[in-house]
């Protein structure tokens, strides 16, 4: 029955092939635009998401909060309250945390190897978990530094691709030496290529050293990150110190014992850490991790209820939200435009169906005279318009897929096949067939058979 109706609708569409095709064109274009836009949008939001997670969507940074001296606030990061112990406590107690590393970074340190020199954009430092936290993956060659090398403040470094290219062009870098501020470092590994980050900074233009080495050997002035290149920091006689000071932890001050820790307020020490970087196990666990870290740090810093935190935790979730919201907004805007073109196509369908009803008034009258009920006439024309729209929709899906494949190849834009878009546009085109086909079909079904038969 339905099949027969579809068949007869197909027959009557075939009676005027060119007109049917032209009518469909509006829907074809509309659906093709929807499909292409959705696929480009999906591809764009994929690439944004991957570039953000490359930066580490699960990464949180902990800074000390401001301190006030004589009513003058230092601003964020002015207090020096984070310690190595905080780091260890976070790692031990926070279940949602994957890895923790202290972070110190300095700029403007010149690296010299043989007769070449290069100033990396940033020299980073951390513990053995630094590479996990910053999601560097596995080294391209060599290895990353170990916990022991961090403990002993070994003079080892891992270099980025840009630094490798500048200092050791076309040569093996692992096992070679370079000097940072006159301290001799051994290159033990090379980072994989990461490219520029979202701010446009070259993430490969970097050298990573153990944080203890950074604190004790590269910047004697303590946690200050304002790095005038420390000419006084080390003399060349100190080079290759990993052999000179084996296995003993490089502690500048004596540790507090447990009684001292209970009795005294947290002393300001010059070897405090100015930043801790933490990665959560998954991006979804970031809020949990923040809550857990807050609890641990408030307890350790002896902050009573109602008092303000003396630290601040920042994560990428806001940035992630902003970026996906931006690309989502773009996609919805394009989608609205595409939907408008679908509506225009639908108006075209309605127009043609009205013409068709007028043109076939006598046929309608005849069908009524031989006993067709009004509802059957309604269904007949509705089937025709839905079929028209569905065929147009299918063609549009094909054209849209083709267009996005061409765009992906020619423009190199990221594109992702979106099943949702295909289903949506098939549904929307059928709905357009119903909505815009209903009025003409209804008019046809309400015709008076006598007048319809006499219609010229």
């Amino acid at each position, binding site marked *: 029955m339905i099949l*027969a109706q579809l068949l*007869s609708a197909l027959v009557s569409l075939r*009676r005027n092939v060119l007109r049917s095709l032209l009518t469909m064109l509006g829907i074809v274009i509309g659906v093709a635009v929807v499909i292409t836009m959705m696929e480009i949008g999906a591809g764009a939001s994929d690439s944004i998401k991957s570039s953000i997670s490359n930066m580490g969507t699960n990464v949180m940074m902990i800074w000390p909060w401001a301190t006030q001296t004589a009513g003058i606030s230092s601003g964020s990061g002015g207090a020096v309250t984070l310690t190595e112990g905080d780091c260890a406590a976070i790692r031990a107690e926070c279940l949602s945390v994957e890895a923790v590393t202290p972070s110190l970074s300095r700029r403007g340190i010149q690296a010299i190897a043989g007769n070449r020199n290069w100033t990396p954009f940033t020299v980073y430092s951390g513990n053995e978990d630094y590479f996990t936290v910053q999601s560097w993956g596995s080294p391209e060659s060599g290895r990353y530094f170990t916990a022991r090398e961090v403990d002993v403040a070994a003079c080892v470094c891992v270099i980025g691709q840009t630094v490798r290219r500048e200092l050791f062009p076309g040569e093996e870098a692992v096992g070679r030496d370079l000097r940072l501020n006159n301290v001799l470092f051994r290159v033990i590994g090379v980072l994989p290529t990461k490219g520029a980050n979202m701010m446009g900074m070259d993430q490969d233009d970097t050298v990573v050293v153990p944080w203890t080495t950074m604190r004790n050997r590269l910047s004697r002035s303590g946690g200050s990150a304002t790095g005038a290149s420390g000419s006084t920091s080390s003399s060349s006689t100190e080079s290759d110190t990993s052999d000179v000071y084996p296995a003993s932890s490089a502690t500048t001050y004596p540790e507090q014992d447990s009684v001292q820790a209970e009795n005294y307020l947290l002393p300001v020490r010059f070897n405090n850490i100015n930043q801790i970087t933490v990665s959560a196990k998954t991006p979804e666990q970031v809020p949990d991790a923040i809550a857990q870290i807050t609890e641990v740090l408030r307890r350790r810093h002896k902050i009573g209820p109602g008092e303000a935190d003396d630290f601040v935790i920042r994560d990428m979730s806001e940035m992630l939200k902003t970026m996906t919201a931006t690309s989502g907004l773009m996609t919805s805007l394009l989608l609205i435009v595409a939907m408008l073109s679908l509506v225009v196509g639908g108006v075209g369908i309605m127009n043609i169906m009205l013409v068709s009803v007028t043109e076939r008034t*006598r*046929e309608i*009258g*005849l*069908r*009524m*005279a*031989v*006993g*067709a*009920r*009004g*509802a*059957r006439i309604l269904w007949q024309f509705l089937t025709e318009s839905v079929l028209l729209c569905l065929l147009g929709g299918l063609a549009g899906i094909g054209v849209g897929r083709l267009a996005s494949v061409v765009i992906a190849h020619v423009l190199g834009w990221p594109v992702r096949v979106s099943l949702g878009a295909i289903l949506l546009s098939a549904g929307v085109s059928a709905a357009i067939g119903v909505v815009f086909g209903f009025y003409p079909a209804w008019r046809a079904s309400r015709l008076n*058979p*006598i007048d319809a*038969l006499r219609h010229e």
Partner: protein
Amino acid sequence: MAGKTLIELRGLEKTYRLGGGLAVPVLRGIDMTIREGTLLALMGPSGGGKSTLMNILGFLDVPTGGQYLLDGRDVTTLSANARADLRNARIGFVFQNFNLLARTSALKNVLMPLEYAKRRKGAREERAWAESLLRRVGLGDRMEYQPSQMSGGQQQRVAIARALVNRPRILFADEPTGNLDSKTSEEVLRMFQELNEQEGLTIVLVTHSPEVGAFAKEAYHIKDGRIVGGTYTEK
């Protein structure tokens, strides 16, 4: 020719209401009996109401007064759907301008009314029946021809086959020869006579021409919405 009464009209009236409340009476009390197996002509000048009467008889229109009995059952006020079903099951129409579906073969044209039938037979059986009807009207070799490829007489014969396809009790022909020349007119009218005599089919011819009326067994003259006379000829 005394068949039993098929249709009975009692004081049938039809008044059209134009805009502004102006009432135009078209039928002013028609009493009429149509017996089974007759070949009846409704004659009269155009505008006299004979087409309106045929439309009411054929359930295309509803009367505004009086009574319409079909097989003794009152069918004066029926819903549009009930009338559609009745048209499909009981009535065949032949029109002046043939009203065939363009770009559709003769066979498909004949089969078309069966699409709306309540009780369908198998496609093969329906097709065989339609083919036998086309052979009956002398178009056995033209079944796949489209209307544009046929003469007026052939087209009207396709229309007759179509009117017969659902085995109607009564056939209405509204000026069936109006668009045909005299020779094909006679062929078509002879076919009506044949159907009437051989199959006992009740046929109502609506015409203004006395020549056409001469083929009928009986005739009613309608003028200004009233029956003004009848001729009963035994043939």
